[in-house]
């Protein structure tokens, strides 16, 4: 049941910004909500379908996780529907209307929209979880009965979820406000000529509003209010276990009898207004996706739908949502918000494995060479400790015996690989990489060969872990995960196409963040950037310098392998210009050894 002061909070505050910003627990908030602007409304309105899809994918991901928290991981998949229909329970698919995103109501900021979508998804999942099978299979006796059955069931599953997860109750409220209160004229009863017909419809419409509106709707028909009170008493109890046992079919029957007595004659075919028909259709969870509504008002274009599907398969993650939301605070004020940064795991296309094999055969002669160059990473270490109170007697220190008992020593031999390294490889995949690197080879092909060389050489070395990311800016800063300890299929290394521009500074920043958070604690980190020396001018170039400096102070080394013809100095600690495999392998090995031993 809804506590009045909770409602006051929901009225004024978005719920999802609690986690969207990552700062929900910070103190000194004014409690009136954060005025985060609709950063991705620009994206959604933009012509760029890629960018639209990314924003929508990120939102879906966040909403799905709320569903996972309530119902268990991967029990349901959440998607946007390209048609109106909501949920297909047999396949555990929840399809959300994209309408709140594509046509946001006035005054709705991004977190408000996410609230509505979360409420919608929670509502659907709650049906799947708590509604009994007969709810889907039984045909109610007449259309009025159907309305009541749906109202009862909706109220029931929402309250049950709220009892188990009290903090999520507000999402249902947000969803109901969006659904039933933004266009009051849509749901209001429309008078009918036939007096009886009019009365029946009035009661149904009003009952729906009393139960579902968030605006304390009171009917002019006293009986409707009375029956609604009865339903509230039955459902809004505090004990979830008892509530789960409630037979909602019987409750509906009782409500129906109270509301209509015997006004309804079974042999008359009554018709419902479109609002109630629409409402009943939503309850029709059995429907095949797409089979119900004809006007398709929430239709999202199928190419967008496909893009979203792909991105979800690529496990696309937005790395800087919080930053974007803040930047959106004041949309009119320059500088423009930073680009979205996304990580994705590309699906392996057909030619990828073959391209990878080609690269491998080219670099084969140098694989062992590079690995040998790193052999120092595996040397055995002998550690002698002296002046211990216990251990083996150290004869050399017996002279101390009259004043100290610390005359023992201990030898520890560590045979295992001792020099651990976490290496991140960052490959420029911007459009300029299609230019030649000499020898009839494009820069991107060369970069692919080098990435292959590194992975082939390092993979068998236990002490080294390797990450490879491609990066470019097209719609967003795309960080494609091509290889990592969690993604060991090397065919992805053959995926490097070249498009977009070169957000080198941002890429450096986010690759380092990944390396630092996924790499091993206290293990030396090295970032190797294979690029053609053409970063986007302005902030991106400046950011390279800044990041290199910052990483250096954190003990992370950066090395640039320059595959372009313009050996520009733009901030790396060390640069190795491309000449040939032999020289680059040797130099890289030597440099790395030197850097690591400096530590």
């Amino acid at each position, binding site marked *: 049941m809804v506590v009045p002061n909770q409602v006051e909070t929901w009225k004024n505050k978005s719920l999802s910004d609690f986690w969207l910003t990552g700062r929900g627990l910070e103190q000194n908030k004014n409690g009136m909500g954060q005025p985060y602007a609709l950063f991705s409304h620009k994206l959604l309105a933009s012509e760029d379908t890629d960018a639209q899809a990314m924003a929508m994918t990120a939102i879906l991901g*966040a909403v799905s996780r709320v569903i996972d928290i309530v119902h268990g991981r991967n029990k349901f998949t959440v998607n946007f529907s390209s048609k109106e229909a909501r949920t297909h329970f047999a396949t555990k698919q929840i399809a959300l209307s994209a309408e709140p995103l594509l046509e946001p109501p006035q005054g709705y900021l991004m977190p408000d929209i996410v609230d509505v979508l979360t409420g919608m998804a929670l509502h659907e999942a709650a049906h799947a979880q708590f509604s009994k099978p007969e709810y889907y299979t039984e045909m109610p006796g007449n259309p009025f009965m159907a309305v009541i059955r749906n109202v009862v069931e909706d109220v029931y599953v929402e309250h049950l979820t709220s009892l188990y997860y009290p903090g999520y109750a507000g999402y249902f409220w947000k969803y109901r406000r969006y659904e039933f209160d933004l266009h009051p004229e849509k749901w209001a009863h429309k008078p009918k000529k036939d007096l009886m017909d009019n009365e029946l419809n009035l009661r149904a419409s009003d009952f729906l509003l009393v139960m579902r509106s968030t605006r304390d709707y009171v009917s002019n028909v006293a009986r409707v209010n009375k029956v609604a009170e009865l339903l509230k008493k039955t459902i809004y109890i505090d004990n979830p276990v008892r509530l789960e046992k409630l037979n909602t079919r019987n409750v509906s029957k009782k409500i129906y009898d109270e509301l209509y007595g015997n006004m309804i004659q079974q042999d008359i075919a009554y018709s419902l207004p479109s609002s109630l028909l629409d409402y009943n259709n939503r309850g029709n969870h059995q429907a095949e996706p797409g089979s119900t509504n004809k006007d398709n008002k929430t239709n999202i274009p199928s190419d967008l739908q496909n893009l979203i599907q792909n991105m979800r398969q690529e496990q696309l993650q937005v790395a800087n949502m919080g930053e974007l939301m803040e930047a959106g605070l004041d949309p009119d004020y320059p500088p423009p918000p930073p680009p979205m940064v996304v990580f994705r795991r590309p699906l392996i296309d057909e030619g990828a494995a073959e391209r990878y094999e080609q690269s491998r055969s080219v670099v084969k002669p140098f694989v062992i060479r590079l690995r040998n160059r790193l052999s120092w990473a595996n040397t055995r270490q002998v550690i002698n400790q002296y002046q211990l109170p216990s251990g083996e007697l150290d004869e050399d220190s017996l002279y101390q015996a009259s004043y*100290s008992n610390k005359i023992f020593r201990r030898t520890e031999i560590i045979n295992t690989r001792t020099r651990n390294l976490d290496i991140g490889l960052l490959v420029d995949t911007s459009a300029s990489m299609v230019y030649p690197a000499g020898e009839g080879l494009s820069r991107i092909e060369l970069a692919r060969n080098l990435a292959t060389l590194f992975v082939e050489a390092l993979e068998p070395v236990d002490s080294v872990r390797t990450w490879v990311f491609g990066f470019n800016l097209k719609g967003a800063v795309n960080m494609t995960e091509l290889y990592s300890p969690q993604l060991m299929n090397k065919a992805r290394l053959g995926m490097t196409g070249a498009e977009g521009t070169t957000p080198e500074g941002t890429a450096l920043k986010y690759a380092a963040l990944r390396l630092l958070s996924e790499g091993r604690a206290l293990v030396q980190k090295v970032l190797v950037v294979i690029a053609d020396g053409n970063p986007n001018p302005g902030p991106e170039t400046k950011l390279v310098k800044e990041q290199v400096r910052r990483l250096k102070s954190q003990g992370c080394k950066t090395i640039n392998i320059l595959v372009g013809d313009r050996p520009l100095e733009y901030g790396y600690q060390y640069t190795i210009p491309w000449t040939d495999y032999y020289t680059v392998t040797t130099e890289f090995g030597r440099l790395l050894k030197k850097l690591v031993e400096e530590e």
Partner: protein
Amino acid sequence: MTIEQNIQADRWGVNVESLPKFWVDAEKLSIIQDLMFSGINVMLTGDPGTGKTDLTKRLAQAHNLPFHRVNVGAIRTPRDWFGHWEFIGGQTVFIPSEFVEAIQRPGIVALDEFNRVTPDIHNSIYTILDHNREVYIEETKQHISVHPKCIFIATENRGRSHTGTFMEDTAVGDRFETIQLELPPVETMAHLLEAVYGATADQALLLSRITHKLNILYHEESLSRPSGFRPAISATALLKRGQSLHTALKYTFVNRFSPEGGVDSEQTTVLQVIQAYLK
């Protein structure tokens, strides 16, 4: 009653049905006691913070038995079990360890974090742990027999995030019966937080629910580390010191997880969980 009297008074071997201020599944508790009183070594496993270490001590208290705990992770060489050399009065003498003393008398010897060391450290006490129950100590040229009423209970950390631990060793497995500990049920954990640590009823229930959900998410691999009892204990402590609920949650449950990944970060997930239970 003194320890000796107690052990002689035939209370040795009588199971207790529960432990004060500590929850263990009743069946597991009785099995653990049956094993230990039958001279079978017990290995307690389970996520961090499920009370493995604490249980060893509480069993000793409940049965009024002497208790000796070995922090196995701190043992560096196979001989460290038995003692060390010291230079006293002009000569080196071997000082036997407390462990050697402890195994020669009745009581519980806890081998805490047994899998924190390489198997070669285990080797030198294998004969203590198997049916021989004896060992020859070179340094003192002594044969030591384990007291028949000396009980061994080891603890072990398992789990994805325990990188400091070593592969399971079958020789160890054979010498112990393994019992896996779990978090107490939500209500029980809440009750403990209230009764033992002084949380209010509302706080206790909230912390316990959050802990449980986070633990489920860990086992579903949505989070990279488990949440045992400890964050809830810490949060309770902060609350009792007058910190606000939000601050207490932030510094205990949330900050244990990484903020990397924006909306997809583990911290976001934890915040989503916290929100679910905040009223």
